[in-house]
């Protein structure tokens, strides 16, 4: 894995490699290099399987993080390629030309996070949500509780307890 990272660092702007396990490594790559790097991993290094493509919303940093997890069946190893996008203009190059199924992940990301992948097939069609009008629901500034209360007629009488406090009161009432 170390040798792989060293090979990649010569060609691409690869930073922050994290050896999660002996057979699993994550690293960050510059957005402009990302698709070239993923193509290189697929064509030259044998990482032929896209396990998943997912996103994280770093609200405080103003960034979206995309993670492409690629699997090398011969080496029995995974690499996670992280790409950071600007939260204001989240646009990323599509990888559907490498893996057909990436288009489905990208459709989901478009709907749930609002990350655009121009040129990806059926990217603008609704994926799970039909007729969604609000900001994408997986963004962290979307208040799902408030939305639910305004939209779905909450039934009155529901109480919630913080589990830690509640158990403390139950077990040690005099403290």
């Amino acid at each position, binding site marked *: 894995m170390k040798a792989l990272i060293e090979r990649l660092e010569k060609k691409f702007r690869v930073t922050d490699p994290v050896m999660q396990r002996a057979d699993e490594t994550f690293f960050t790559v510059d957005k402009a290099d990302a698709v070239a790097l993923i193509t290189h991993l697929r064509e030259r290094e044998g990482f032929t399987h896209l396990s998943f493509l997912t996103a994280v919303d770093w609200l405080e940093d103003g960034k979206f993080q995309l993670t492409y997890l690629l699997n090398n069946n011969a080496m029995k190893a995974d690499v996670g390629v992280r790409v950071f996008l600007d939260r204001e203009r989240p646009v990323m190059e599509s990888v559907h030309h490498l893996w057909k199924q990436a288009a489905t992940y990208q459709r989901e990301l478009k709907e749930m996070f609002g990350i655009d992948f121009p040129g990806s097939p059926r990217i603008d069609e609704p994926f799970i949500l039909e007729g969604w009008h609000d900001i994408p629901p997986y963004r962290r500034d979307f208040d*799902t509780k408030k939305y639910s209360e305004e939209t779905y007629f909450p*039934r009155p009488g529901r109480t919630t307890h913080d589990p830690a406090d509640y158990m403390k009161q139950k077990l040690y009432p005099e403290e």
Partner: protein
Amino acid sequence: MSSKDLEKRRVTGPDGEQFDVDPMQDYFCQERPKEHEPANRIWESFLNWARAESLWILGYGTGCGAIEMRPLMTPRFDAYRYGIQWRPTPRQSNVLVIGGYLSVKTLKRVIRSYEQMQGPKYVVALGSCTINGGMYWDSYNTINRLDKYLPVDIYITGCMPRPESLLAGFEALKKLIREGKGEGQNLYARNFDEYKANQKKIIRDWDMPDYNW
């Protein structure tokens, strides 16, 4: 189905014959649901007895509770011995069992199925999700109270209810029907505008006719 399927169009038949199709006129009924007045007391009580003994469930699994229906319809719990059977299509059934959480997308299909079912028809709602949202109470995509969108005859509590509680629920439903209190369908017809307003409030891409029967 999309809103395009509801538009008028010219269709070519197998013999090359051209004819116009207006789906809203040709495929769907344009009339609101009507309330049904009960017949005289003795005849109505006989009908209610017959209805209670003739429950046909639409085998449509909406949430995780649908998994409880499999042991129920197979020899382990065997609901058939109570005269409760499953049917594959809405047109052949009169009990709609809502198995747990309903997302907005599923609710749309549930409404279509419910409206296509034959009357008198009943709705049985399983689990805490249909009552107050359950563990999905603050989700952006699942409804909290089913009775705002469909007339629920009986709720069965639990997360998930065991097949035994479903059997008890069906017995309670039979009792309700025998007493003439299974009035969900009439309730739906009476408050039709209110139900439709609630449904349309959350189903934003309403691309089906208002009357689906």
